[in-house]
């Protein structure tokens, strides 16, 4: 073995969309240890809950992350609704599921593009992002926004989707499905993609469980857990939900799980549209959360389970709001996957675990 050397990786690196730093302890070309360092962009958004009332804070919550924006507003609203015992109309719950699954589609396709760019398949990257634009067009037509929608409020949603728009969504998704299958084939069958992903950065089933990993990265190691299977909100109306699983635990399995989840999300949206109930889209919420009252909630974000916690103090301001994002939970798994890999594979492993630093540092 050669002499151990520490190679700094990030926070500015061509493969990293966000500032993550890794101290890679390398012997020859093999990484023997990786120590992650975050904390470059901590914004203190959770502290802002003291100066924004529980209705205003929803706009802060959805600005935590530009990709999971809808998911954070949904998770926050559901937590406050639990805290105050608010019943949300069924139509609003279903509309939330439609937008949340569309967010998952756009997040997964965006990430697949970044992964393609990381392993040097630039045309695949462009095809992914071209497809994602069509999902963003749906957001624009139904909410007025492309990234931040501000469509969720405590007690329901602020906009309805009419029959014509629902038919349009179905038509667009049908078109996306055909194009997407071609792109997915490139990811799952192309030899050059497989050369970079198969057998790389393996996280065993036991490690994934022991390290409390969540999301597609845990499901790629055959961990049968997805918050959607617990049937929260509108997800309770699904006839059947089975998480997408794979047993290999390598980069290829992580790509495969996320790729197949896009088709699963499209199926969920179609099922929701087919059974969308008529009725109100919001309930009037009055009063303030009781002093000392606390509530917790889980939401399956595109990158995995997100935990929300709220505590009231008897006023319209919350005493504490907490979001635990999937990346916080997966950092330990990432360091484990990096130990023993080739230096050239570090970017693939980091990207397939997809750390979201803006979520993590809130």
């Amino acid at each position, binding site marked *: 073995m050669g002499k151990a050397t520490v190679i700094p990786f990030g926070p500015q690196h061509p493969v990293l969309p966000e500032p993550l730093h890794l101290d890679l302890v390398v012997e020859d070309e093999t990484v023997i240890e990786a120590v992650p360092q975050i904390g470059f962009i901590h914004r203190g958004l959770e502290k802002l809950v003291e100066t924004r009332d529980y209705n205003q804070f929803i706009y802060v919550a959805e600005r935590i992350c530009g990709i999971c924006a809808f998911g954070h507003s949904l998770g926050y609203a559901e937590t406050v609704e639990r805290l105050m015992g608010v019943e949300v109309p069924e139509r609003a719950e279903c509309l939330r599921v439609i937008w949340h699954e569309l967010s998952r589609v756009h997040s997964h396709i965006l990430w697949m593009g970044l992964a393609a760019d990381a392993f040097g398949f630039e045309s695949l990257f462009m095809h992914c992002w071209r497809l994602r634009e069509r999902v963003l067009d749906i957001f624009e037509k139904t909410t007025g926004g492309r990234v931040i929608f501000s469509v969720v409020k405590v007690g329901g949603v602020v906009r309805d989707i009419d029959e014509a728009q629902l038919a349009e969504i179905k038509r667009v998704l049908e078109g996306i499905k055909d194009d997407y299958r071609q792109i997915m084939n490139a990811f799952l069958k192309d030899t050059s993609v497989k050369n970079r992903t198969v057998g790389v950065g393996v996280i065993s089933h036991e490690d994934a469980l022991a390290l409390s990993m969540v999301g597609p990265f845990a499901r790629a190691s055959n961990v049968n857990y997805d918050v959607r299977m617990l049937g929260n909100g509108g997800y309770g109306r699904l006839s059947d939900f089975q998480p997408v699983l794979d047993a290999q635990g390598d980069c290829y399995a992580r790509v495969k799980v996320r790729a197949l989840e896009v088709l699963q999300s499209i199926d969920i949206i179609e099922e929701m549209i087919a059974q969308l109930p008529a009725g109100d889209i919001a309930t009037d919420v009055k009063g303030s959360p009781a*002093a000392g009252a606390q509530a*917790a*909630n889980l939401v399956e974000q595109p990158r995995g389970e997100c935990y929300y916690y709220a505590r009231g103090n008897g006023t319209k301001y919350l005493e504490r709001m907490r979001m635990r994002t999937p990346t916080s*939970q997966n950092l*330990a798994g990432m360091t484990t996957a990096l130990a023993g890999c080739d230096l050239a594979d570090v970017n693939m492993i980091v990207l397939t675990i997809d750390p979201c630093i803006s979520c993590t540092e809130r």
Partner: protein
Amino acid sequence: MALEIEFAPLSVEELPALAAEKKAEGARFVQLLAVNTEEGIDLVYTFMKGGVLTNHEIKGVGPDMTVPSITDQFLAAFVFENEAHDLFGVSISDIAIDFGGNFYALSQKEPMTIISPEQKAAREKAKKLAAAKAAKERQAAATAAQAEYLAGHPDAQAGSKPRGPIEPSGSDDLDARLAGVDPEKVARVKAALAAKAKKAAKAEAAAKESALEEKLAGMDPEKAAKVRAAMEAKAAREAAAQKEGE
């Protein structure tokens, strides 16, 4: 499988045993969060197994206390333990990957323990609301008990005299007491009493003003300026009305 959410109390001493128990039963570590309260920092450890999300809460961790790390059982907790240390100043021992206070690049130490004027005002308001609610409940209970007693004792109701406000001893009483006293002495007594009343009123006004100043100092400067402006406007209105009356 549906989501069930539970909250349970926990002590610092019980934490290592709880972590070992959760590990043995195959539970997943979900998160650790901290809440800044007047009694200290509350820590909430969350675990999940089979759709049951259990939140174990340690209340009031003080600056002189050290909390043992659970990273020996759940490595994923290192992120949260470093965070609780950097943002809330919680002392945690034996963290597997310990950043020694450099996990987050922060411009000030322990930023989440700073109580903003808004938070202080919210806490005071909540206390007042809770006190008012408790007083209302006490009064309702007393009224109900009295009604129950009177229902069982009709004699007490017939013989009871309605209680009214106690009449203060007025100047009529003083005049009666001073009847027949030397008029010069009466004038001196009345002047002394008036001076005493004026002094008491002045002291009361000064105390009120200092209490108000103290309250305004604790408020958001912008809000305090608004309150001051409103008070000045009110004083000006009253002065104008008084002048008009004269």
